[in-house]
């Protein structure tokens, strides 16, 4: 890498007052034609471009982003990373990703601050505990790390949590994935952008794709706000907006785009060392390295592209947080925001081909695709390069909605993030 980052490079550039840094990524003008165009410069799209260039030797790739790189959900998520999914198909998918996370900073030569501080899913009812047993056993047998914690053990790790019997939904136990954690969301985008750019991928910002150019059932390119751009293959990874784009090629997708909100507190001294999620009480919380509590809310029930939801959703979320962490009620919310998540009926993504030859979709990640960023990019790249899915993403085709072979994560582990 021309412009390697290290402690020494910091020293070196520091002596030059940092006036000698190279651009993290280049911003070329779009060419007329590419081998592969990726629509959507979020983490997923950038990762796909990176792996296409790195692992599949594709030379001529562009990522088209309508705003700034990472301006979608990549900028807005609560950064929870885990792979303790129930079904084999999803466990393999997310574990594939988690493994990539584990070497990602080094791979990209960009510290994405991936912090394996563990993810805890708290159970409050007997049925929660049955589900936790089931999931933890399935995880272990799939090679995914998982343990069950007693309320005492939970309290040891999370002193702020109320495990008393007085709670409306007392804590009965939890599943815990030690390898899970959080990462710095923006850094993931920049790291992939930089690495992809370094491999010659053209990253085109402020370039909105209006529609697909399709001839005789084959993709020919895209029309954009910067004019038409031709390509042999187009991969669409435009989280939130996939239905809108698919519709321009006459493709219907099983997606609904909903607002999903999150918020942060003011920055505080370390007080929470793992990620805590509760489905029954509806609360998700972690503390970032900078010190703010990062809290995810529930989904707003309506279709919304406004990147904002309704305030009562935030109020409910905080009432749940205060229920689980009664000591936090004097802590203050600093900022709240929303993203647009496209949700599938079985809460699992679609990564696959469409009936337009050369057009691929990576979508439907709903409330939980940040953790999949490297994995999804990797598998999407494979699918585009081979015009066929990788065995890991083969179950996640659009066809499953026609055959009925859903991979329904709502079932026993309806944990959203």
């Amino acid at each position: 890498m021309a412009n390697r980052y290290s402690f020494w490079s910091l020293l070196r550039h520091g002596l030059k007052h940092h006036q000698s840094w190279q651009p993290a990524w280049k911003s070329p003008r779009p060419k007329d034609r590419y081998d592969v165009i990726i629509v959507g410069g979020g983490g997923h799209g950038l990762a796909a471009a990176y792996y296409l260039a790195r692992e599949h030797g594709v030379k001529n790739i562009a990522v088209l982003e309508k705003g700034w790189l990472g301006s979608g959900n990549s900028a807005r998520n609560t950064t929870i990373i885990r792979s303790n999914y129930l079904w084999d198909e999803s466990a393999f998918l997310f574990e594939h990703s988690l493994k990539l996370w584990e070497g990602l900073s080094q791979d990209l030569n960009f510290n994405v601050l991936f912090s394996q501080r563990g993810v805890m899913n708290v159970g409050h009812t007997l049925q929660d505990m049955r589900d936790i047993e089931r999931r933890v056993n399935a995880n272990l047998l799939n090679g995914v790390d998982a343990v069950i914690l007693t309320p005492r053990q939970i309290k040891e790790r999370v002193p702020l949590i109320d495990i008393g019997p007085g709670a409306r939904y007392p804590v009965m136990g939890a599943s815990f994935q030690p390898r899970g954690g959080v990462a710095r969301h923006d850094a993931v985008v920049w790291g992939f952008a930089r690495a992809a750019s370094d491999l010659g991928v053209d990253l085109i910002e402020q370039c909105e794709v209006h529609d697909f150019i399709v001839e005789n059932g084959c993709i020919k390119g895209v029309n954009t706000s910067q004019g038409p751009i031709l390509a042999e293959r187009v991969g669409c990874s435009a989280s939130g907006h996939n239905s809108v784009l698919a519709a321009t090629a006459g493709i219907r997708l099983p997606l609904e785009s909903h607002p999903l909100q999150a918020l942060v507190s003011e920055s505080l001294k370390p007080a929470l060392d793992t990620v805590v999620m509760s489905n029954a009480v509806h609360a998700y919380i972690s503390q970032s390295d900078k010190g703010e509590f990062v809290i995810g809310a529930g989904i707003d029930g309506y279709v919304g592209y406004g990147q904002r939801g309704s305030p009562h959703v935030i109020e409910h979320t905080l009432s749940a947080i205060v229920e689980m962490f009664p000591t936090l009620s004097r802590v203050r919310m600093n900022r709240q925001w929303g993203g647009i998540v496209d949700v599938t009926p079985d809460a699992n993504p679609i990564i696959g081909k469409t009936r337009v030859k050369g057009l691929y979709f990576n979508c439907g990640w709903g409330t939980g695709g940040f953790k999949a960023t490297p994995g999804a990019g990797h598998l999407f790249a494979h699918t585009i390069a081979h015009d066929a899915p990788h065995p890991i993403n083969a179950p996640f085709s659009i066809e499953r909605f026609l055959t009925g072979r859903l991979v329904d994560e709502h079932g026993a582990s309806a944990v959203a993030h």
Partner: protein
Amino acid sequence: MFLIYCPYCKATREEEEFHNAGEAFIARPADPEAASDEEWGDYLFMRKNPKGWHWEQWQHAAGCGRVFAVKRHTLSYRIAGSWTLAAGKALFLQEGGV
């Protein structure tokens, strides 16, 4: 947070009284057994999910319990109006809805 007019209560109320009940006017195939897997899958799962005007159903869950049609813009969040399902469908068809 929306203010939604319920055509049955004839009143405008806070969003919290309602449940969104998804895209409106998705007709169940008249003879499901005659539908192909593809047609059935389309009916079950595929959604318009437009960025723009959207015909959707809301149920006045905390009020009269009725389901009715709302035409809402999914980007600006503006609401063009609420109608009973029958009246809404007529308008929807008149607009060329399919």
